[in-house]
């Protein structure tokens, strides 16, 4: 469905991606784990051409492009096949919830307004915001904003949705509602490439987990294999740290 090959990206002298290959099959949910600064965000941004990778190629459906030589038209085609959910939600501030969901449908895909409105309503209902159609982003909690952002992505019916730490800007008590929406999106069979540190999501939902460090994939496999018997020392160290913190966080809020 979507594959990237040999993605290289350098910022100045900082080599952030050192030849990353990822293959995601239709309907698959792939979680990317890795320490901060390992290049996860940059990788997703390269796939959506929000950064221009120095090298590598992208295949998505029947589109095949070189990152470096992609034309404006090719970039637009890729973006119209993908959707992205950002860490900081990035809802359009000049549009209310339903307009946020409709924008890509109406303006980019030229779907008639009435039809787009129905789709947007349906998607907002699915994320539990049937009473917030007309709310402005500033009137919504972080969790609600992120749910609108997910509805906005799903409404486009893209070949793949890229999630970049969708819950890490949220207050702990709001993480659950967003994760459960992501789980139901996964159950719909939508292809997802998810950067997250939420171990429960990775464990319960992911078909495959990829561990990245210093701009390269260290290892990948089934969640239960990665979590219970990682092959690489760096993976183990990272998991120990995260799980420890997870426990600590849980203790903290388990009063």
């Amino acid at each position: 469905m979507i594959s990237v090959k040999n993605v290289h990206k350098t910022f100045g002298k900082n080599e952030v991606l050192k030849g990353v290959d990822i293959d995601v099959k239709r309907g698959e949910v792939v979680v990317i784990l890795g320490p901060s600064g390992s290049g996860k965000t940059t990788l997703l941004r390269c796939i959506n051409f929000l950064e221009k990778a120095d090298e590598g190629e992208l295949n998505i459906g029947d589109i095949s492009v070189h990152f470096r030589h992609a034309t404006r038209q090719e970039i637009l085609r890729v973006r119209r096949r993908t959707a992205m959910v950002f860490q900081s939600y990035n809802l359009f501030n000049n549009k209310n919830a339903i307009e946020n969901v409709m924008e890509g449908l109406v303006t980019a895909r030229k779907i008639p307004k009435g039809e787009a409105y129905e789709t947007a309503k349906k998607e907002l209902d699915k994320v539990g915001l049937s009473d917030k159609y007309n709310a402005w982003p500033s009137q919504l909690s972080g969790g609600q904003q992120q749910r609108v952002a997910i509805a906005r992505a799903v409404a486009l019916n893209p070949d793949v949705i890229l999630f970049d730490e969708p819950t890490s800007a949220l207050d702990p008590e709001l993480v659950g509602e967003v994760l459960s929406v992501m789980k139901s999106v996964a159950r719909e069979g939508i292809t997802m490439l998810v950067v997250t540190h939420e171990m429960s999501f990775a464990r319960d939902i992911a078909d495959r987990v990829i561990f990245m460090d210093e701009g390269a994939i260290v290892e990948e496999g089934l969640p239960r294999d990665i979590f219970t018997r990682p092959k690489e020392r760096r993976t183990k160290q990272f998991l120990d740290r995260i799980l420890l913190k997870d426990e600590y966080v849980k203790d903290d809020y388990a009063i």
Partner: protein
Amino acid sequence: MGKLFDPALIIEYAPLILSRLPVTLLIVFWAIVGGSVLGTLLALARIHKVPFLNGAAVFFISFVRGTPILIQMFIVYYGLPLLLMYFGINITRWAKLNFVLVSYALNNAAFLAEIIRSAILSVPASQSEAAWSVGLSASQTFRRIILPQAFRTAFPAFGARVINAMQDTALAFTLGILDILGQAQAIGIRTYHTLEGYVVTAIIFIVASLLMEHTFAFIERRRLAR
């Protein structure tokens, strides 16, 4: 010749002068509409550092801000026909009002360009990225996401500019335009009662400024309420 200052004449002249208010408002209207369109283009040239145009925009803006509008108007009035003649376009038969409209539009473009530029830059890059990610093209992103948000930011400064633009029209009479000030001037020449007419224009300017100020403040409150 009677009294030097006759308050009764204020009442008598008021309708005559007020009848020229549409001319003043017409100048303001085209100054702001033309200025906004050109100002947006200037702002874009500057933001995207378009070769040559960026430099031209910087020069134009500092020229306009650094010279009195009266001089700008004379330059347009005497210079524009020569310039266009060079391109084979003859505007020597243009109504004087057209030259005034062009001058004020150019003048306001310079001021609005800076207002628009900083408002556009104040919209976070993440808004554009979200728009691109749902498949909007660069120009769709600009028109549908960036510009509306920038306009909101710019609104107070924009309102102040409209009021300034109105007060700036007070020089249009030097080209013989019969706006409210031109009319006051004409009455003064005819009747030797100059001050009364100017008092009328002062009152019109004050009332119009206050009206505009309150209208803008009202719109602002309504928009911020969401």
